Protein backbone atom coordinates (compact mmCIF):
# COMPACT_ATOMS: atom_id res chain seq x y z
CA UNK A 1 0.00 0.00 0.00
CA UNK A 2 2.78 2.34 0.93
CA UNK A 3 4.41 1.68 -2.42
CA UNK A 4 1.26 2.65 -4.26
CA UNK A 5 1.33 5.96 -2.42
CA UNK A 6 5.00 6.51 -3.28
CA UNK A 7 4.20 5.81 -6.89
CA UNK A 8 1.28 8.22 -6.86
CA UNK A 9 3.51 10.83 -5.25
CA UNK A 10 6.17 10.43 -7.97
CA UNK A 11 3.51 10.77 -10.65
CA UNK A 12 2.01 13.84 -9.01
CA UNK A 13 5.41 15.47 -8.55
CA UNK A 14 6.23 14.97 -12.20
CA UNK A 15 2.96 16.43 -13.42
CA UNK A 16 3.34 19.45 -11.15
CA UNK A 17 6.84 19.97 -12.52
CA UNK A 18 5.49 19.87 -16.06
CA UNK A 19 2.63 22.23 -15.28
CA UNK A 20 5.01 24.65 -13.60
CA UNK A 21 7.29 24.61 -16.60
CA UNK A 22 4.40 25.25 -18.97
CA UNK A 23 3.35 28.89 -19.18
CA UNK A 24 6.17 31.00 -20.45
CA UNK A 25 7.16 29.26 -23.66
CA UNK A 26 4.95 31.06 -26.15
CA UNK A 27 6.27 34.53 -25.44
CA UNK A 28 8.49 35.70 -28.28
CA UNK A 29 9.71 38.98 -29.69
CA UNK A 30 6.46 40.88 -29.40
CA UNK A 31 6.23 41.38 -25.67
CA UNK A 32 9.81 42.57 -25.61
CA UNK A 33 9.40 45.06 -28.42
CA UNK A 34 6.66 46.82 -26.46
CA UNK A 35 9.17 47.81 -23.82
CA UNK A 36 11.04 51.09 -23.89
CA UNK A 37 14.55 49.65 -23.74
CA UNK A 38 14.55 47.30 -26.68
CA UNK A 39 15.64 43.74 -25.89
CA UNK A 40 15.70 41.16 -28.65
CA UNK A 41 14.18 37.80 -27.86
CA UNK A 42 12.74 34.80 -29.64
CA UNK A 43 13.42 31.24 -30.66
CA UNK A 44 15.48 30.55 -33.78
CA UNK A 45 15.88 27.06 -35.19
CA UNK A 46 18.43 25.80 -37.68
CA UNK A 47 19.67 22.43 -38.88
CA UNK A 48 21.97 20.96 -41.50
CA UNK A 49 25.53 20.03 -42.35
CA UNK A 50 27.83 18.56 -39.73
CA UNK A 51 30.73 20.15 -41.64
CA UNK A 52 29.28 23.60 -40.96
CA UNK A 53 28.45 22.65 -37.34
CA UNK A 54 31.79 23.59 -35.70
CA UNK A 55 31.74 27.14 -37.11
CA UNK A 56 28.02 27.46 -36.34
CA UNK A 57 28.59 26.31 -32.77
CA UNK A 58 31.26 28.98 -32.33
CA UNK A 59 28.90 31.64 -33.72
CA UNK A 60 25.97 30.55 -31.52
CA UNK A 61 28.24 30.43 -28.49
CA UNK A 62 29.42 34.00 -29.08
CA UNK A 63 25.95 35.22 -29.97
CA UNK A 64 24.51 33.83 -26.72
CA UNK A 65 26.90 36.14 -24.86
CA UNK A 66 25.72 39.15 -26.84
CA UNK A 67 21.96 38.46 -26.90
CA UNK A 68 20.94 36.42 -23.90
CA UNK A 69 17.23 36.31 -24.69
CA UNK A 70 17.51 35.00 -28.23
CA UNK A 71 17.43 31.22 -28.10
CA UNK A 72 19.20 29.67 -31.07
CA UNK A 73 19.11 25.90 -31.50
CA UNK A 74 20.96 24.15 -34.32
CA UNK A 75 20.80 20.48 -35.26
CA UNK A 76 23.32 18.47 -37.27
CA UNK A 77 21.18 16.20 -39.47
CA UNK A 78 23.48 16.60 -42.49
CA UNK A 79 23.01 18.92 -45.46
CA UNK A 80 20.24 16.80 -47.03
CA UNK A 81 18.44 16.21 -43.74
CA UNK A 82 18.66 19.90 -42.94
CA UNK A 83 17.06 20.88 -46.24
CA UNK A 84 14.20 18.42 -45.61
CA UNK A 85 13.36 20.29 -42.41
CA UNK A 86 13.84 23.65 -44.13
CA UNK A 87 11.39 22.62 -46.85
CA UNK A 88 8.89 21.42 -44.22
CA UNK A 89 9.12 24.90 -42.66
CA UNK A 90 10.48 23.53 -39.40
CA UNK A 91 13.67 25.61 -39.41
CA UNK A 92 14.51 29.27 -39.98
CA UNK A 93 17.86 28.56 -41.56
CA UNK A 94 19.70 25.57 -43.00
CA UNK A 95 23.46 24.93 -43.05
CA UNK A 96 24.91 23.31 -46.14
CA UNK A 97 28.35 22.15 -47.28
CA UNK A 98 27.26 22.26 -50.93
CA UNK A 99 24.99 24.52 -53.00
CA UNK A 100 21.28 23.69 -52.93
CA UNK A 101 20.23 21.03 -55.48
CA UNK A 102 17.66 21.70 -58.20
CA UNK A 103 15.22 19.18 -56.75
CA UNK A 104 15.47 20.87 -53.36
CA UNK A 105 14.86 24.24 -55.04
CA UNK A 106 11.72 22.85 -56.67
CA UNK A 107 10.42 21.51 -53.39
CA UNK A 108 11.05 24.87 -51.72
CA UNK A 109 9.14 26.56 -54.56
CA UNK A 110 6.25 24.15 -54.10
CA UNK A 111 6.22 24.81 -50.38
CA UNK A 112 6.34 28.56 -51.04
CA UNK A 113 9.56 29.05 -49.10
CA UNK A 114 11.71 31.92 -50.40
CA UNK A 115 15.29 31.91 -49.25
CA UNK A 116 18.58 33.80 -49.35
CA UNK A 117 21.89 32.00 -49.88
CA UNK A 118 24.79 33.22 -47.74
CA UNK A 119 28.39 32.04 -48.03
CA UNK A 120 30.12 32.02 -44.67
CA UNK A 121 33.50 30.29 -45.16
CA UNK A 122 35.64 28.03 -47.34
CA UNK A 123 36.44 24.42 -46.75
CA UNK A 124 38.96 22.42 -48.73
CA UNK A 125 37.84 18.87 -49.36
CA UNK A 126 41.11 17.13 -48.56
CA UNK A 127 42.37 13.84 -49.99
CA UNK A 128 44.43 12.11 -47.33
CA UNK A 129 46.65 9.01 -47.17
CA UNK A 130 48.50 7.10 -44.46
CA UNK A 131 51.63 8.66 -42.99
CA UNK A 132 53.74 5.75 -44.27
CA UNK A 133 52.50 6.27 -47.80
CA UNK A 134 55.63 7.79 -49.39
CA UNK A 135 54.56 7.48 -53.01
CA UNK A 136 51.22 9.26 -53.47
CA UNK A 137 52.31 12.85 -52.83
CA UNK A 138 50.50 14.31 -55.75
CA UNK A 139 47.49 13.23 -57.80
CA UNK A 140 45.72 14.70 -60.78
CA UNK A 141 41.95 14.93 -61.02
CA UNK A 142 42.07 12.14 -63.62
CA UNK A 143 44.01 9.91 -61.20
CA UNK A 144 41.39 10.47 -58.54
CA UNK A 145 38.62 9.71 -60.98
CA UNK A 146 40.37 6.49 -62.04
CA UNK A 147 40.72 5.44 -58.43
CA UNK A 148 37.30 6.26 -57.05
CA UNK A 149 34.90 5.37 -59.90
CA UNK A 150 33.69 1.77 -59.79
CA UNK A 151 34.65 -0.15 -62.94
CA UNK A 152 34.45 -3.73 -61.73
CA UNK A 153 38.20 -4.18 -61.24
CA UNK A 154 40.24 -4.34 -58.06
CA UNK A 155 42.12 -1.05 -57.78
CA UNK A 156 45.84 -1.15 -57.13
CA UNK A 157 48.26 1.70 -56.57
CA UNK A 158 50.30 0.41 -59.51
CA UNK A 159 47.30 1.06 -61.80
CA UNK A 160 47.81 4.78 -61.27
CA UNK A 161 51.60 4.81 -61.59
CA UNK A 162 53.59 1.64 -62.46
CA UNK A 163 56.35 2.65 -60.05
CA UNK A 164 53.92 2.53 -57.11
CA UNK A 165 53.37 -0.64 -55.03
CA UNK A 166 51.25 -3.36 -56.53
CA UNK A 167 48.90 -3.41 -53.59
CA UNK A 168 45.17 -2.98 -53.27
CA UNK A 169 43.93 0.52 -52.43
CA UNK A 170 41.69 0.69 -49.36
CA UNK A 171 39.03 3.40 -49.69
CA UNK A 172 37.33 5.50 -46.99
CA UNK A 173 34.60 8.03 -47.74
CA UNK A 174 31.93 10.09 -45.94
CA UNK A 175 28.34 8.77 -46.00
CA UNK A 176 26.07 9.45 -48.96
CA UNK A 177 23.81 11.80 -46.96
CA UNK A 178 26.67 14.22 -46.31
CA UNK A 179 27.33 17.35 -48.32
CA UNK A 180 30.97 16.27 -48.58
CA UNK A 181 29.99 13.13 -50.49
CA UNK A 182 27.64 15.18 -52.68
CA UNK A 183 30.44 17.61 -53.45
CA UNK A 184 32.85 14.79 -54.33
CA UNK A 185 30.13 13.27 -56.48
CA UNK A 186 29.69 16.53 -58.33
CA UNK A 187 33.35 17.18 -59.14
CA UNK A 188 34.69 13.62 -59.50
CA UNK A 189 32.09 10.88 -59.79
CA UNK A 190 29.49 12.80 -61.78
CA UNK A 191 26.83 10.27 -60.78
CA UNK A 192 28.89 7.18 -61.60
CA UNK A 193 29.18 4.71 -58.72
CA UNK A 194 31.73 5.11 -55.97
CA UNK A 195 34.08 2.11 -55.67
CA UNK A 196 32.10 -0.67 -54.01
CA UNK A 197 34.92 -1.67 -51.66
CA UNK A 198 34.87 1.76 -49.98
CA UNK A 199 34.05 2.01 -46.28
CA UNK A 200 31.42 4.72 -45.81
CA UNK A 201 30.85 6.48 -42.52
CA UNK A 202 28.86 9.53 -41.38
CA UNK A 203 31.44 9.95 -38.65
CA UNK A 204 34.63 11.52 -40.03
CA UNK A 205 36.64 10.24 -37.06
CA UNK A 206 35.97 6.68 -38.27
CA UNK A 207 37.58 7.66 -41.57
CA UNK A 208 40.55 9.25 -39.79
CA UNK A 209 41.11 6.14 -37.67
CA UNK A 210 40.73 3.84 -40.67
CA UNK A 211 43.25 5.72 -42.80
CA UNK A 212 45.70 5.98 -39.88
CA UNK A 213 45.59 2.20 -39.51
CA UNK A 214 46.29 1.09 -43.08
CA UNK A 215 49.31 1.89 -45.23
CA UNK A 216 47.31 1.44 -48.44
CA UNK A 217 44.34 3.55 -47.39
CA UNK A 218 43.06 6.72 -49.03
CA UNK A 219 40.08 8.85 -48.10
CA UNK A 220 38.65 12.35 -48.13
CA UNK A 221 36.92 14.74 -45.75
CA UNK A 222 36.75 18.39 -44.76
CA UNK A 223 39.97 20.38 -44.24
CA UNK A 224 39.21 20.91 -40.53
CA UNK A 225 39.51 17.19 -39.87
CA UNK A 226 42.83 17.04 -41.70
CA UNK A 227 44.01 20.13 -39.86
CA UNK A 228 43.27 18.50 -36.49
CA UNK A 229 45.08 15.29 -37.51
CA UNK A 230 48.01 16.78 -39.46
CA UNK A 231 50.58 14.83 -37.45
CA UNK A 232 49.15 11.42 -38.26
CA UNK A 233 47.94 11.84 -41.85
CA UNK A 234 49.36 13.08 -45.16
CA UNK A 235 47.39 15.35 -47.44
CA UNK A 236 47.74 14.71 -51.17
CA UNK A 237 48.41 17.68 -53.45
CA UNK A 238 46.03 18.06 -56.36
CA UNK A 239 47.72 19.03 -59.63
CA UNK A 240 50.76 20.09 -57.55
CA UNK A 241 48.74 22.41 -55.33
CA UNK A 242 48.74 21.39 -51.67
CA UNK A 243 45.72 22.24 -49.53
CA UNK A 244 46.32 25.06 -47.04
CA UNK A 245 44.45 28.17 -46.03
CA UNK A 246 46.09 30.25 -48.79
CA UNK A 247 45.42 27.92 -51.70
CA UNK A 248 41.89 27.24 -50.47
CA UNK A 249 41.03 30.92 -50.07
CA UNK A 250 42.45 31.87 -53.45
CA UNK A 251 40.63 29.00 -55.14
CA UNK A 252 43.95 27.62 -56.50
CA UNK A 253 43.24 24.36 -54.71
CA UNK A 254 41.00 23.25 -57.51
CA UNK A 255 38.43 21.68 -57.76
CA UNK A 256 38.19 20.83 -54.08
CA UNK A 257 38.00 24.28 -52.57
CA UNK A 258 34.33 24.69 -51.70
CA UNK A 259 32.22 27.32 -49.96
CA UNK A 260 30.06 26.57 -46.92
CA UNK A 261 26.56 28.02 -46.93
CA UNK A 262 23.74 29.14 -44.72
CA UNK A 263 20.31 29.28 -46.37
CA UNK A 264 17.89 31.52 -44.54
CA UNK A 265 14.14 31.80 -45.01
CA UNK A 266 13.07 35.25 -46.27
CA UNK A 267 9.69 35.05 -44.57
CA UNK A 268 11.28 34.28 -41.21
CA UNK A 269 13.80 37.07 -41.82
CA UNK A 270 10.98 39.57 -42.31
CA UNK A 271 8.98 38.29 -39.38
CA UNK A 272 11.66 37.80 -36.74
CA UNK A 273 13.81 40.74 -35.78
CA UNK A 274 16.05 38.35 -33.83
CA UNK A 275 16.80 36.23 -36.91
CA UNK A 276 17.98 39.27 -38.87
CA UNK A 277 20.12 40.27 -35.93
CA UNK A 278 21.61 36.78 -35.67
CA UNK A 279 22.33 36.59 -39.41
CA UNK A 280 24.06 39.98 -39.30
CA UNK A 281 26.13 38.59 -36.44
CA UNK A 282 26.95 35.47 -38.49
CA UNK A 283 28.19 37.54 -41.44
CA UNK A 284 30.19 39.90 -39.20
CA UNK A 285 31.94 37.13 -37.28
CA UNK A 286 32.26 34.22 -39.73
CA UNK A 287 35.75 35.20 -40.84
CA UNK A 288 37.13 35.13 -37.31
CA UNK A 289 35.27 31.97 -36.33
CA UNK A 290 36.33 30.18 -39.53
CA UNK A 291 39.98 30.69 -38.56
CA UNK A 292 39.26 29.61 -35.00
CA UNK A 293 37.78 26.23 -35.91
CA UNK A 294 40.05 25.23 -38.79
CA UNK A 295 38.22 26.55 -41.85
CA UNK A 296 39.24 29.32 -44.20
CA UNK A 297 37.76 32.82 -44.28
CA UNK A 298 36.21 34.29 -47.40
CA UNK A 299 37.57 37.47 -49.02
CA UNK A 300 36.07 40.61 -47.40
CA UNK A 301 34.12 41.41 -50.55
CA UNK A 302 32.17 38.16 -50.21
CA UNK A 303 30.98 39.12 -46.74
CA UNK A 304 30.01 42.60 -47.96
CA UNK A 305 28.06 40.92 -50.74
CA UNK A 306 26.28 38.62 -48.25
CA UNK A 307 25.39 41.62 -46.09
CA UNK A 308 23.90 43.41 -49.09
CA UNK A 309 21.82 40.36 -49.92
CA UNK A 310 20.51 40.20 -46.37
CA UNK A 311 19.61 43.88 -46.38
CA UNK A 312 17.76 43.54 -49.67
CA UNK A 313 15.23 41.19 -48.05
CA UNK A 314 12.60 43.53 -46.71
Amino acid sequence: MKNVKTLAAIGLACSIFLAACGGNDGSTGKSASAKEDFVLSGNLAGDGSSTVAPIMEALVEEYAQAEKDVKVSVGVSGTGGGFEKFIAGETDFSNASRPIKDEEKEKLDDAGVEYTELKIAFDGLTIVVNKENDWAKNLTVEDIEKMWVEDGTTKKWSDIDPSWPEEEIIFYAPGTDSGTYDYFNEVILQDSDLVKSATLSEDDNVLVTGIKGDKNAIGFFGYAYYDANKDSLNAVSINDIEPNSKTIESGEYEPFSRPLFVYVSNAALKEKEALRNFMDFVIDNSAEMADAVGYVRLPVTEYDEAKKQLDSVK
Partner: protein
Amino acid sequence: MDNNLLIKTNRRIVKDSIMKWLFGTASFLLIVLIAFLFYGIGADGVGRLNLSLFTNFGSRFPEQAGLKAALVGTLSLMAVVIPVSMFIGICSAIYLEEYAVKNKWTAFIEMNISNLAGVPSVVFGLLGLTVFSRALFLGNSILAAGLTMSVLILPIIIVASQEAIRSVPDNLREASYGMGATKWQTITQVIMPSSIGSILTGSILSFSRAIGETAPLIVLGIPVIIQFLPTGPLSTFTALPMQIYDWAKRPQPEFADVASAGIIVLLVILVTMNAFAIYFRNKAMKKLQN
Protein backbone atom coordinates in the same frame (compact mmCIF):
# COMPACT_ATOMS: atom_id res chain seq x y z
CA MET B 1 32.26 -54.40 -14.49
CA ASP B 2 33.69 -52.26 -11.71
CA ASN B 3 36.31 -50.95 -14.07
CA ASN B 4 33.63 -49.93 -16.55
CA LEU B 5 31.78 -47.98 -13.92
CA LEU B 6 34.96 -46.17 -12.93
CA ILE B 7 35.60 -45.06 -16.52
CA LYS B 8 32.05 -43.76 -16.81
CA THR B 9 32.34 -41.83 -13.57
CA ASN B 10 35.65 -40.36 -14.64
CA ARG B 11 34.14 -39.21 -17.90
CA ARG B 12 31.33 -37.48 -16.10
CA ILE B 13 33.76 -35.75 -13.80
CA VAL B 14 35.86 -34.55 -16.75
CA LYS B 15 32.75 -33.30 -18.54
CA ASP B 16 31.71 -31.49 -15.41
CA SER B 17 34.99 -29.65 -15.05
CA ILE B 18 35.09 -28.75 -18.77
CA MET B 19 31.67 -27.17 -18.45
CA LYS B 20 32.71 -25.34 -15.33
CA TRP B 21 35.71 -23.87 -17.17
CA LEU B 22 33.61 -22.97 -20.20
CA PHE B 23 31.06 -21.03 -18.18
CA GLY B 24 33.78 -19.50 -16.04
CA THR B 25 35.69 -18.26 -19.09
CA ALA B 26 32.54 -16.81 -20.61
CA SER B 27 31.82 -14.76 -17.48
CA PHE B 28 35.47 -13.78 -17.18
CA LEU B 29 35.61 -12.53 -20.80
CA LEU B 30 32.57 -10.38 -20.15
CA ILE B 31 34.08 -8.89 -17.03
CA VAL B 32 37.37 -8.17 -18.83
CA LEU B 33 35.43 -6.46 -21.62
CA ILE B 34 33.52 -4.27 -19.16
CA ALA B 35 36.72 -3.51 -17.27
CA PHE B 36 38.40 -2.40 -20.51
CA LEU B 37 35.43 -0.21 -21.37
CA PHE B 38 35.41 1.42 -17.93
CA TYR B 39 39.16 1.84 -17.95
CA GLY B 40 39.15 3.42 -21.42
CA ILE B 41 36.34 5.83 -20.60
CA GLY B 42 37.63 6.49 -17.09
CA ALA B 43 41.20 7.25 -18.16
CA ASP B 44 40.01 9.73 -20.82
CA GLY B 45 37.10 11.25 -19.00
CA VAL B 46 38.04 11.59 -15.35
CA GLY B 47 40.25 14.60 -16.05
CA ARG B 48 37.27 16.49 -17.41
CA LEU B 49 34.91 15.60 -14.56
CA ASN B 50 34.81 18.98 -12.85
CA LEU B 51 32.21 21.54 -11.92
CA SER B 52 32.46 23.38 -15.25
CA LEU B 53 31.23 20.25 -17.02
CA PHE B 54 27.91 20.72 -15.22
CA THR B 55 27.67 24.52 -15.22
CA ASN B 56 28.73 25.27 -18.82
CA PHE B 57 26.88 24.99 -22.10
CA GLY B 58 28.54 23.42 -25.13
CA SER B 59 31.56 25.28 -26.46
CA ARG B 60 34.04 25.27 -29.33
CA PHE B 61 36.78 25.13 -26.69
CA PRO B 62 36.94 21.55 -25.40
CA GLU B 63 38.16 22.70 -21.98
CA GLN B 64 35.08 24.91 -21.58
CA ALA B 65 32.51 22.57 -23.06
CA GLY B 66 29.83 21.47 -20.61
CA LEU B 67 26.68 19.44 -20.64
CA LYS B 68 24.38 21.71 -18.64
CA ALA B 69 21.78 21.89 -21.43
CA ALA B 70 22.00 18.15 -22.13
CA LEU B 71 21.69 17.13 -18.48
CA VAL B 72 18.70 19.37 -17.81
CA GLY B 73 17.24 18.22 -21.14
CA THR B 74 17.56 14.54 -20.25
CA LEU B 75 15.99 15.11 -16.82
CA SER B 76 13.09 17.06 -18.36
CA LEU B 77 12.68 14.32 -20.92
CA MET B 78 12.36 11.77 -18.13
CA ALA B 79 9.82 14.01 -16.37
CA VAL B 80 7.59 13.34 -19.39
CA VAL B 81 8.54 9.73 -20.00
CA ILE B 82 8.13 8.41 -16.44
CA PRO B 83 4.54 9.49 -15.69
CA VAL B 84 3.23 8.92 -19.22
CA SER B 85 4.74 5.49 -19.78
CA MET B 86 4.01 4.20 -16.25
CA PHE B 87 0.42 5.37 -16.26
CA ILE B 88 -0.46 3.92 -19.66
CA GLY B 89 1.72 0.84 -19.16
CA ILE B 90 0.38 -0.23 -15.78
CA CYS B 91 -3.22 0.55 -16.75
CA SER B 92 -2.97 -1.59 -19.89
CA ALA B 93 -1.34 -4.42 -17.96
CA ILE B 94 -4.11 -4.38 -15.33
CA TYR B 95 -6.74 -4.35 -18.04
CA LEU B 96 -5.18 -7.21 -19.97
CA GLU B 97 -4.60 -9.36 -16.89
CA GLU B 98 -7.61 -8.61 -14.70
CA TYR B 99 -10.44 -7.39 -16.92
CA ALA B 100 -9.96 -8.61 -20.49
CA VAL B 101 -11.61 -11.90 -21.45
CA LYS B 102 -9.00 -14.39 -22.60
CA ASN B 103 -9.78 -15.04 -26.26
CA LYS B 104 -8.11 -14.92 -29.67
CA TRP B 105 -8.28 -11.15 -29.75
CA THR B 106 -6.49 -10.56 -26.50
CA ALA B 107 -3.93 -13.22 -27.41
CA PHE B 108 -3.39 -11.37 -30.69
CA ILE B 109 -2.99 -8.05 -28.89
CA GLU B 110 -0.56 -9.51 -26.37
CA MET B 111 1.50 -11.10 -29.12
CA ASN B 112 1.75 -7.73 -30.86
CA ILE B 113 2.83 -5.98 -27.67
CA SER B 114 5.63 -8.51 -27.22
CA ASN B 115 6.68 -8.04 -30.84
CA LEU B 116 6.71 -4.26 -30.43
CA ALA B 117 9.27 -4.66 -27.66
CA GLY B 118 11.68 -5.96 -30.31
CA VAL B 119 11.12 -3.27 -32.94
CA PRO B 120 14.28 -1.16 -33.56
CA SER B 121 14.18 2.26 -31.89
CA VAL B 122 14.65 4.09 -35.22
CA VAL B 123 11.18 2.90 -36.22
CA PHE B 124 9.73 4.50 -33.09
CA GLY B 125 11.65 7.64 -34.00
CA LEU B 126 9.93 7.72 -37.39
CA LEU B 127 6.58 7.15 -35.70
CA GLY B 128 7.28 10.04 -33.32
CA LEU B 129 8.35 12.29 -36.21
CA THR B 130 5.14 11.58 -38.16
CA VAL B 131 2.64 11.60 -35.30
CA PHE B 132 3.95 13.83 -32.51
CA SER B 133 6.33 16.19 -34.34
CA ARG B 134 4.42 16.76 -37.56
CA ALA B 135 0.73 15.72 -37.17
CA LEU B 136 0.37 17.11 -33.65
CA PHE B 137 2.74 20.06 -34.34
CA LEU B 138 4.94 19.36 -31.32
CA GLY B 139 8.14 19.85 -33.36
CA ASN B 140 11.34 18.80 -31.65
CA SER B 141 10.05 19.72 -28.20
CA ILE B 142 10.55 17.86 -24.93
CA LEU B 143 6.94 16.72 -25.12
CA ALA B 144 7.35 15.22 -28.62
CA ALA B 145 10.54 13.39 -27.67
CA GLY B 146 9.09 12.33 -24.32
CA LEU B 147 5.99 10.84 -25.92
CA THR B 148 8.12 9.07 -28.53
CA MET B 149 10.35 7.58 -25.83
CA SER B 150 7.24 6.59 -23.84
CA VAL B 151 5.85 4.67 -26.81
CA LEU B 152 9.27 3.06 -27.26
CA ILE B 153 9.38 1.65 -23.73
CA LEU B 154 5.64 1.01 -23.27
CA PRO B 155 5.77 -2.59 -24.54
CA ILE B 156 8.54 -3.42 -22.06
CA ILE B 157 6.61 -1.89 -19.16
CA ILE B 158 3.37 -3.64 -20.16
CA VAL B 159 5.04 -7.04 -20.48
CA ALA B 160 6.93 -6.63 -17.18
CA SER B 161 3.79 -5.47 -15.37
CA GLN B 162 1.73 -8.33 -16.80
CA GLU B 163 4.30 -10.83 -15.57
CA ALA B 164 4.23 -9.20 -12.14
CA ILE B 165 0.45 -9.22 -11.91
CA ARG B 166 0.28 -12.79 -13.19
CA SER B 167 2.68 -13.95 -10.50
CA VAL B 168 0.29 -12.84 -7.72
CA PRO B 169 -1.13 -16.16 -6.44
CA ASP B 170 -4.79 -16.74 -7.31
CA ASN B 171 -5.67 -17.71 -3.76
CA LEU B 172 -4.97 -14.10 -2.71
CA ARG B 173 -7.50 -12.89 -5.28
CA GLU B 174 -10.01 -15.50 -4.22
CA ALA B 175 -9.57 -14.65 -0.55
CA SER B 176 -10.21 -11.00 -1.36
CA TYR B 177 -13.36 -11.78 -3.35
CA GLY B 178 -14.43 -14.18 -0.61
CA MET B 179 -14.40 -11.32 1.86
CA GLY B 180 -16.74 -9.40 -0.37
CA ALA B 181 -14.21 -7.05 -1.98
CA THR B 182 -14.97 -5.61 -5.41
CA LYS B 183 -12.61 -6.00 -8.34
CA TRP B 184 -11.25 -2.49 -7.93
CA GLN B 185 -10.68 -3.06 -4.21
CA THR B 186 -8.91 -6.33 -4.98
CA ILE B 187 -6.65 -4.59 -7.52
CA THR B 188 -5.70 -1.68 -5.27
CA GLN B 189 -5.50 -3.57 -1.95
CA VAL B 190 -4.19 -6.98 -2.95
CA ILE B 191 -2.73 -7.19 -6.44
CA MET B 192 -0.92 -3.85 -6.66
CA PRO B 193 0.83 -4.03 -3.27
CA SER B 194 2.22 -7.47 -4.00
CA SER B 195 3.26 -6.78 -7.60
CA ILE B 196 4.43 -3.16 -7.47
CA GLY B 197 8.02 -4.13 -6.67
CA SER B 198 8.47 -6.13 -9.88
CA ILE B 199 6.53 -3.55 -11.86
CA LEU B 200 8.87 -0.80 -10.66
CA THR B 201 11.94 -2.92 -11.39
CA GLY B 202 10.80 -3.53 -14.97
CA SER B 203 9.83 0.10 -15.44
CA ILE B 204 13.05 1.57 -14.09
CA LEU B 205 15.14 -0.71 -16.30
CA SER B 206 13.16 0.50 -19.30
CA PHE B 207 13.68 4.15 -18.23
CA SER B 208 17.41 3.46 -18.38
CA ARG B 209 16.89 2.44 -21.98
CA ALA B 210 14.97 5.65 -22.70
CA ILE B 211 17.82 7.71 -21.22
CA GLY B 212 20.47 6.05 -23.39
CA GLU B 213 18.58 5.93 -26.70
CA THR B 214 20.01 8.16 -29.43
CA ALA B 215 18.41 6.96 -32.67
CA PRO B 216 14.86 8.29 -32.08
CA LEU B 217 16.29 11.66 -31.03
CA ILE B 218 18.33 11.88 -34.23
CA VAL B 219 15.24 11.09 -36.30
CA LEU B 220 13.24 13.76 -34.46
CA GLY B 221 16.03 16.25 -35.27
CA ILE B 222 16.87 17.15 -31.69
CA PRO B 223 19.47 19.95 -31.97
CA VAL B 224 22.86 19.78 -30.24
CA ILE B 225 24.07 23.35 -30.59
CA ILE B 226 22.08 25.02 -27.85
CA GLN B 227 22.98 27.74 -25.36
CA PHE B 228 19.84 27.86 -23.24
CA LEU B 229 17.87 25.69 -20.84
CA PRO B 230 14.40 24.38 -21.70
CA THR B 231 11.61 26.58 -20.31
CA GLY B 232 8.72 24.14 -20.59
CA PRO B 233 7.44 20.96 -22.20
CA LEU B 234 7.14 22.71 -25.58
CA SER B 235 10.68 24.07 -25.51
CA THR B 236 13.48 22.74 -27.72
CA PHE B 237 16.20 20.90 -25.85
CA THR B 238 19.12 18.55 -26.23
CA ALA B 239 19.85 15.30 -24.42
CA LEU B 240 22.94 13.56 -23.06
CA PRO B 241 23.31 10.88 -25.76
CA MET B 242 23.00 13.52 -28.51
CA GLN B 243 25.62 15.72 -26.89
CA ILE B 244 28.00 12.79 -26.35
CA TYR B 245 27.53 11.61 -29.94
CA ASP B 246 28.28 15.11 -31.20
CA TRP B 247 31.46 15.41 -29.13
CA ALA B 248 32.66 11.96 -30.16
CA LYS B 249 32.43 13.02 -33.83
CA ARG B 250 34.61 16.14 -33.44
CA PRO B 251 38.04 16.19 -35.10
CA GLN B 252 39.93 17.48 -32.03
CA PRO B 253 41.05 14.64 -29.75
CA GLU B 254 40.31 16.85 -26.69
CA PHE B 255 36.61 16.54 -27.48
CA ALA B 256 36.89 12.76 -27.16
CA ASP B 257 37.84 13.34 -23.51
CA VAL B 258 34.79 15.53 -22.99
CA ALA B 259 32.68 12.81 -24.61
CA SER B 260 34.16 10.28 -22.16
CA ALA B 261 33.32 12.56 -19.24
CA GLY B 262 29.78 12.77 -20.61
CA ILE B 263 29.61 8.98 -20.81
CA ILE B 264 30.67 8.74 -17.16
CA VAL B 265 27.82 11.08 -16.18
CA LEU B 266 25.39 9.00 -18.22
CA LEU B 267 26.71 5.78 -16.63
CA VAL B 268 26.34 7.21 -13.12
CA ILE B 269 22.70 8.09 -13.85
CA LEU B 270 22.06 4.59 -15.23
CA VAL B 271 23.74 2.81 -12.31
CA THR B 272 21.78 4.96 -9.83
CA MET B 273 18.53 4.06 -11.55
CA ASN B 274 19.38 0.37 -11.59
CA ALA B 275 20.28 0.56 -7.91
CA PHE B 276 16.81 1.97 -7.27
CA ALA B 277 15.33 -0.91 -9.23
CA ILE B 278 17.16 -3.45 -7.07
CA TYR B 279 16.14 -1.59 -3.90
CA PHE B 280 12.46 -1.68 -4.84
CA ARG B 281 12.67 -5.36 -5.76
CA ASN B 282 14.25 -6.32 -2.44
CA LYS B 283 11.73 -4.29 -0.51
CA ALA B 284 8.86 -5.95 -2.32
CA MET B 285 10.34 -9.42 -1.80
CA LYS B 286 10.60 -8.80 1.93
CA LYS B 287 7.01 -7.67 2.09
CA LEU B 288 5.82 -10.80 0.29
CA GLN B 289 7.72 -13.05 2.68
CA ASN B 290 6.19 -11.45 5.76
